[in-house]
Every structure is written in C-alpha cells, then in structure tokens.
C-alpha cells in the first residue's frame, strides 16, 4: 500500500496521452498530439490547433551559457490569463491551464470554469498560487502519475525520478502571438500574425524555429505538442454521411484515419492504466508462478548468465 502524496504535486510524464487524459478530467473535448514537424502540411493535418506546447530540457556546457531569448517583448498589460509556475512538479498542468485560460468560448467542466472565474483579475503570482492550491486540480494531476516508490511504513525509498521538462505555451490572443512561460514575469508578445492562409501557426513556426536555433546543437532536448480539437467525432459524422455513397477513395481513406486514431487512443489508455498501477504485487505473483511451474531456478541461471555476458562486455570496454 503506497502512501498517497496528498500534500504536494507529483511529477508527471510529458506524454500526449497524459495531457489528453488531463483535458478529459477538466471536461475539455480537445486532445494533445505529438508534433513531429512544424512544416505546413503537418500542421494543416492537425488543424484547428488552439495552442502549441514547446517542452524542453536543456543541458548547458556552463551555467553562463543560457542563450538570452531576445525575441518578443514582455506585456505587463496582458488582458488574458497568465499564471506563474509556483510549484515545479505542477509545470505540465500549469502549461495546460495557461493555454486553456486564453481560448475563447472554451468548452469546459464546471470546476475549471469556477477556477477561471475565481482567478479573474489576479496578478500572475497570486494566480499561480490559486491554481496550485486547487485540490481537485492537484488530484486530477496526481492521478496521472506513477504511484509512489515502494513504501515501507513511510520509509519511501527514492526512486529514480525524471527531471522535469520546462513547458512554454504559444498561442494567439487578440491578433498577436503570445508566449506563456510560467517562469517569466509576464507573457511575451511576439507581434501580430496574418489571419489568412496558415494563420497564427505560421508566426509560431518562425518564433519556435528561431528559438531552437539559439541553442548550440545537441544541447537541447525538446518536444512539440499541439492542443487541438478531437478529430474523432467529426470523422465519424463524415463516415456516416458517406455510407452508401460512391466516394470509395475518401471512404477508405477516412476509415484508415479513424482506425489509426482509435489505435492511438487505445495505446494511450493502456499506457495511462499502466502508469497509474503499482506493479509490485505483480512482480511477486510472477516470481511465485515461475517457482510453482518449476521455472524459477532456470530463470535465475539465465539471469546469472546474462549478467556474466554483461560484465564481460564491460571488462572488455574498460581494458
């Protein structure tokens, strides 16, 4: 039985499946997808995109190496929603909230709407504290993370923990592209974008690519995520409309897309279940089953053999 860490925020993985599950718990019918490229075709396939989330870990050669991000200007009169990151482990949820808080006519559950009403007019710091004090939000967030390390009557042995990524949100507000970074004093305004054609994502591409290039090669580990409408309902409606029609190509293309989307959701559901589960009981049960099947000794012998091979390789490398 693990001790529930109910006093704080647990570190979550930064995975589209985790983010999408969080959105579900907030009552928001959007999904989050991995973006593998910022090229127009890739982005077009995911439209409408409400926000881009840039997550990164940065490995400096020296502490003074941080590139000064000079693009854009702080907007201390930002009219939208902006919260500071006051708890490190909450960074993923905070980024999502910063994005959602600026989406006009956002469909969302009552708790989230109440939170937005409650924080209206607050300064970024107070807003950040209000967000991280919302028990229901913290519980929704923690429900997505792995259970605590093996807890032995409170003697939590440290598990190897992931370092937190840093999250930055890019989205359009009132005709300009904004960058929301919970560790910066204010939102950063990157200027106006053209509504026509690709719209705001074109400007976002320029700004993000420029940012990536300011880091020395190999020093930056990053991912891009897109916060977008859930495409499944629309695709299913279209599929129904096409039934019995002669638009074979479109029909089979659509069915492929739906199948892909469903298998992706299934994978996310599996990973989320797996992530939340304490597997220690299963480890014991498996070892017991191996023993009952008379296979434990040979499994041990196999493990010893593998270890020997591993050591041989290590010794060979060191000599």
């Amino acid at each position: 039985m693990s001790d529930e860490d109910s006093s704080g925020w647990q570190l979550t993985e930064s995975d589209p499946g985790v983010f999408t599950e969080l959105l579900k718990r907030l009552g928001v019918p959007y999904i989050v997808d991995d973006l593998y490229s910022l090229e127009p075709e890739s982005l077009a396939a995911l439209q409408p995109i409400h926000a881009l989330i840039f997550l990164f870990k940065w490995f400096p050669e020296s502490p003074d190496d941080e590139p000064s991000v000079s693009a854009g200007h702080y907007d201390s009169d930002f009219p939208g929603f902006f919260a500071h990151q006051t708890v490190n482990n909450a960074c993923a949820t905070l980024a999502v909230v910063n994005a959602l808080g600026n989406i006009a006519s956002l469909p969302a559950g009552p708790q989230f709407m109440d939170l937005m009403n409650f924080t209206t007019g607050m300064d970024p710091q107070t807003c950040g504290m209000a967000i991280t004090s919302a028990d229901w939000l913290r519980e929704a967030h923690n429900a997505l993370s792995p259970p605590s390390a093996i807890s032995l009557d409170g003697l939590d042995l440290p598990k190897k923990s992931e370092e937190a990524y840093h999250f930055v949100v890019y989205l359009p507000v009132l005709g300009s592209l904004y960058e929301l970074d919970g560790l910066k004093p204010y939102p950063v305004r990157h200027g106006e974008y053209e509504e026509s054609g690709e719209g705001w994502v074109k400007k976002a591409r320029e700004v993000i690519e420029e940012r990536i290039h300011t880091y020395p090669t190999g020093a930056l580990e990053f991912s891009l995520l897109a916060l977008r409408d859930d495409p499944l309902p629309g695709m299913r409606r279209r599929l129904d409309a096409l039934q019995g029609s002669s638009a074979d190509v479109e029909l089979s293309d659509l069915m492929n897309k739906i199948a892909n989307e469903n298998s992706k959701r299934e994978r996310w559901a599996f990973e989320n279940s797996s992530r939340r589960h304490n597997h220690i009981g299963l480890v014991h049960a498996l070892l017991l089953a191996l023993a009952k099947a008379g296979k434990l000794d040979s499994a041990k012998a196999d493990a010893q053999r593998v270890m020997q091979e591993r050591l041989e390789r290590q010794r060979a490398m060191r000599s």
Partner: protein
Amino acid sequence: MSVDLTSTSGRTILAFKAGRAFRRAGTNFVDASPTKGAIVLTNEDGLIHFMWKDRTTGEVGEDLILFPGDAKLEKVTQSSWGRTYVLKFESSDQKHFFWLQDSSALRDEEFVTNLNRTLADPNIIAIWDARNVYPASEASTSAAGPSTSQPSTVPPIAPATSDSTPAGTTPEQLAQLRGIVSSMTGFASEDELWLTDVLSSQNLLPLFQSHPELLTSLFPHLPPELIPSPDATPQQVIEVLQRTTNSPPFRSAVAQLDRALRTGALGEFVRSLGLPESAATGVGAFLAAIAEQARQEGGTEERMEED
C-alpha cells in the same frame, strides 16, 4: 520516456527508521522530535549522501554530502533510553542527533555498524545478517547470495581493502563477498543477478504458454482496466500479460524492487507478501523465500528443471 535500468546514480545504499533530536539552546540536553523519519544513505555519482527524510511527507530534512572517513554515528551513552545516536565529524564540530525508530532494537547495532562502515569506506557494501531478523535457531542462509545453503557463522566482515580472511569464512562466502564488494564499482560475481533479468520476456513467455492454469493468479495484480474478461481466449490473455510485463512502468517497478532489496530495509514489506523477514536481505534471499513459499502453497512441480 524510457527508464535507464543500468544507471546507478542516486542509488540507495541503506535506510532505516530514525527521528531527529535537537539540542535545547544553552544546555546539553537533546530533545527528541517525534516526527517519523528515516536515515537514508545514497550514492550519487560516487558521492555519499547522508539524508534524513520525513516519513510522513517524504521531504528531505537533511542532506549531507560526506567525505569518506569524516563522519561517524556514535551511540550517546548518557542517554538512559539507549537508542540515541550522534553524527560526529572529524572536520568540524557539527553534531546531528538521531534516535532509532524501528519497533525492535534488535537491529540497531547492525544498522549503525553498516552505516559507519560505509561512511568510512564507500566501497564497502552493507552485509545483512539474516540471523538478526530471523532469530530462531533454524538454519538460516547467509545474507550474501542464493547458493549458500549451510548455516554459517558470518563474523563481522573486515573492510574490503584488507587482505586478511575473516575467521570462519568459507571459500564460497569469500567469493561472494568479493563479488558483492566489487558490485559497488560496477562489477559483480557469478552469483550476482538482477531481478529484471529473472523476469525477462524470454523467461516469462514460456511460463505464460505452458502453464495457463497459473495465469489466473496474476489477474488481481494487473491494472484493473486490463484484467482479461472470463471469455478471453488464451491468446488474448497471453497478449495482455506480455504487453504489461514489457511496459516501462512494469520494468521500472522491477528495477525499483531490485534496488530496494539491496538496502536491507524491506522487512515489513516482505512480510506483507507472506514472506519471512529474511527475504529482505537481498535479491537471492528474496527469490529463495519465494521458492519456499511456492513449495508451501503446493503446486510446485517436482521434476527436472527445463532449460
């Protein structure tokens, strides 16, 4: 996100329950703080961290990086209660007071001795004497590894750097000790093994395929949403089991248990699994206890080992 199973950074060497005590200002009195805590020794990239953690919140209250030979945990003899210790330093006047919180005082000396040996020389690994946790006079396996079966007199072990053979050590034990000692530097003896390799997919798949009747015992331990329905086909059951045992969270749990078993602190945990406390003295002892549990529960096949 993949988990690096071979990294040793942040590895817990040992841990035991302890509270802190603080000097009352202007006096020589030390008052115990009731907070439940633990002393945790970790090795992070070759540096020894002596930490005190609050067991109710998980917060680290103290994190000291100690140089080999600088610090020692000594018993406070003036304490009539008898379980108060002070961490003292050669290099400074700093003192940190602790009181041991394990419900039984039987292992106090063992914990403290192992701690001090590690603080003196981080290349020493703690040796847990199974007789201290399983005091009955029946034969107890030495803590060292899976292949020692005779009752052994495991005397206080001399530091790894000395060449003298501790009196009463069998050649087997010596080999194991050398192996265990060298495991701190990344090498291991023939008897060293990792749980992750015992539970490799190569070892599990034959179990899934040849013993379907044993698989239902695994269902209660699966993530609830993934438990196969009663009308699932054998193939579907195997698929769920394979997918789960290949998943990063499962692999991570195995690696965590492996690391935790090497700290000697899992007494209560192994008891919760229905195993004797001696199962907490290492991976080998854990596996041996499970083999015994299987025998007791019946259904163990008494036949030639398959290969």
